[in-house]
């Protein structure tokens, strides 16, 4: 296994992919929560529909995506002003709007298409794992409302957290684009009845 930097809290999202039903509750909850400007292109999180035909049988998969809060975040490295940064304490990647010059280098650098330019803010915006909610003792908005129980959030440093349990019990888990060496903190598993 690779070595990740040590953090006081190691926040992570574990997505049970089979349990995503593409109901879009997460997308609307996120828009409402963070006043993401109207328009389809503006989002902090999204559900992709992936369709293919295998052996003559149609397979349709729903895949929630959001910022991976990478431990090796390309968006942070390319930011010329230091507006994009990664918090030492919990690894959450954030943008400080008043330091952002809108060059969009981070949007290009992100392999996950997880950032967008917020015209109203005049800055690039992205998922924060709902940090201000975490500080009020609430779950991220998308997790809280996830109708299928697909999204799960917690601290991997805590062996009793739902995310630790899910990863421990999963026969298989994966991250997106591991070959990019970004060390994502969003993990995907295929199936589980154990979500909250």
């Amino acid at each position, binding site marked *: 296994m*690779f070595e990740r930097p040590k953090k006081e809290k190691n926040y992570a999202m574990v997505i049970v992919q089979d349990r995503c*039903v*593409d109901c879009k*509750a997460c997308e609307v909850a996120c828009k*409402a929560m963070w006043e993401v400007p109207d328009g389809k292109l503006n989002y902090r999180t999204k559900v992709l529909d992936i369709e293919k035909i295998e052996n003559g049988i*149609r397979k349709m998969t729903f895949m929630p995506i959001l910022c991976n809060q990478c431990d090796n975040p390309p968006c942070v490295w390319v930011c010329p002003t230091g507006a994009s940064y990664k918090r030492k304490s919990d690894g959450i990647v954030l943008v400080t709007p008043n330091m952002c010059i809108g060059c969009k280098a981070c949007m*290009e650098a992100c392999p996950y298409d997880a950032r967008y330019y917020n015209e109203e803010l005049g800055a690039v915006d992205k998922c924060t794992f709902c940090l201000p909610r975490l500080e009020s003792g609430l779950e991220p908005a998308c997790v809280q409302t996830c109708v299928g129980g697909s999204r799960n959030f917690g601290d991997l440093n805590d062996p009793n957290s739902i995310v630790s349990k899910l990863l421990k019990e999963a026969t298989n*888990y994966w991250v997106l684009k591991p070959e990019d*060496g970004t060390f994502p903190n969003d993990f995907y598993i295929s199936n589980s009845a154990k979500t909250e």
Partner: protein
Amino acid sequence: MQIKRRTFLKGALAGSALLSVPLIFDSKAQAREELKPYKPDKVTFNFCEMCFWNCTEKVFVNDGKVIKLEGNDKSPLNWGKLCAKGQAGIKTLYDDNRLKTPLIRVGERGEGKWKKVSWEEAFEFAAKKFKEVIDKYGPETIALEMHGTGEPGIHRLFEVLGGTTNFAIPAYSQCTGSRDIGFYYTFGAALGGHEPYDLSNSRYIILIGRNETESLHVSELYHFAKAIGNKAKIVYVDPRYTHTAAKADKFLQIKPGTDTAFVLALINVMVTEDLINHDFVEKYTTGYDKLKPHIVKYTPQWAESQTGIKADEIIQIAREISSFAPNCIIVPPRRSTRYGFDTQLSRAIAIANALLGNWFQPGGFFKANKIKVPNADMPDVEESKYAQLAQQRNAANAVLSLTNLPNTTQEIVGVLGLDNVLWEAIRTQKPYPIKAMISYGTNPLFHNGDSNKIKEAINKLDFYMVVDILPWEHTLYADIVFPESTYLEKYDALKSISWKYPYVHFREPAVDPVYDTKDIWAIVHGIAKHMGLGEFFPYKDAKGVFFSSLNQMPKDQRDKLLKDGVISLGPIPEDVDLSGDIDPKVAYQKMLDAYKKAPFNPYPIALGEDVSFNTGSGKIDIYCESLKEGGFDPLPTYTPPNKSKKQNEFRLVFGRVAVHTHARTQDNEWLLEHYDDNSVWINPKDAKAINIKDGDKVVLVKGNLKSPYPVKAKVTDKIIEGTIFIAHGWGRFSPYVTRCYKKGVSDAEFCSNDSDPVSGAAAFLNSFVSVEKA
């Protein structure tokens, strides 16, 4: 550093570290603004009214504005979850297209020309009109259709006005009627609005056109997702590949209208191969001996010829589901208003479930429980002078006079009405003229088949009153429009819901009304007062009604309700977890043992209690004597669907998308972002025959009727040949709902308005239309 965007899903096991991880540090920490924790000024309690599942919620308010809606995690209905529609309730509250004052019509019906009036003028006007109708024609000529939490308020006005039997809750006749009546004749119980499917504990689920993921209700879908987590086997039967098909282990693309053949063949296999649950069938059912010879002819081979589903497939499914009995379920469609033989389908499904013995069993049907709450203190409506006048006149129920339904159905229809027939009674003015109609929270131009007839019907009325939130199409025809407050701006009567986990929740205003609107109790109070009937409405608004029942509750219950927003009978035992290596028998026993100690019991049969059924026989009627007495089939039979007479005409089917509710959310900005126009799904072979390509702009044509707003063709084999699909609730023609005006094609205009002879409910899917390039 690669900076190109690449395709997703090159998934592999995380494990190989390609780069070493640099140290994390933030040299500019001093320059950053501090992030403030999220703290709304105020949190109020509510339950959602974006659909009729009514999820319990909290409303977060900042600076006097609703900023976020969130499921109430203490509620056993939705566990803190809301769907996209629920989350988007804010955009309905702040929709600038809302009805903002009472309006009185000044133009022709349909023109949408109004004058704004004060509430006093509006009350006076409605009171005068009701009086005129009563004086001239009698109180029985007042009719009502209603849907939503305010039903008791508007219904009370209707009763005080002497309205008798001519009312309808469209949820029966336009939606679940045939399903519910089929179960009623079999189990003595309708499934109702919050269905008792124990999906989360089920090991094998067959969904007959029940699109769980798109016609979605939060807890039902959550329980369905739990079943997926438990690796339950899911079979989905539908002419269309939906998002639910994507979640199924097996998708069977059935020919439309042939579901009954499929289910009868399942029963055939279960009976001929002796796969039934003998203990259960002997103890709890009547008529199995009559079913045996009856079912012989419905072989899987015969069903293959009807449904297009292979006989071997049917045999395999019947064997598989039986092997999981009783922890399995065959789920009927919710909106069962389809082909006019829908009660037969419902009966067949009910009987198949009975043979599996899954009633009141984990993974089958649970027993719903309810917490009793006191009603608000109000005088008896029968004391009203108009109610007494109506009693003297003793007019016939118009709807029943126009139908020939079996006795038991007549009793149900007496309670829920038949909206389809009620409008026909208005249109034909038979058996006697109905002269006033109230539409509360329903849009008859979108929930009736062949809906242009409704315009004709409205023109027969002396008075048409609408209470709604947005200026939808039917408001254009109304003589008076009362603007109702949204659920986020008002109190409402206390709500106790019967479900697996019974609960009570309440609604309080999060903000003052954004526009000059009132709640339904205030509206009916105003009208009644102007008619000299004020004494029947002792509270001037919903707040009074709410507190009247609240104050009668025991103090501990009341305190808990006000503190948490919801009360339930907890703690709730955990569902079975079958995802590991646990023996399912052990897992089920563990759960049942926990329920032995719980204050409510959803599985009385599994727990060995004696259960009797509300049928004439006290048992589950596989063979139904009362249907036989009424001249109907006592055992389910199959009638093939109608056929198109012309070439290149396609059966029109419709359904819902996950982000809209019926025809009532199409102006919501956030929901429009996800679905803002319906398209016509057409099979590639059909498209080729009429030279339509994917993305072409098309219109629907039926006789002289042509859809006014072109939509895109979606050419896909997700829809079976010979059939086209459109999402429900589009083709919006009210210019006042600007975000969806002129968007989409209306299913209501083009679908059939047939009916089922046993339930009386509508049958919408017998219509054939052609598709033309726009």
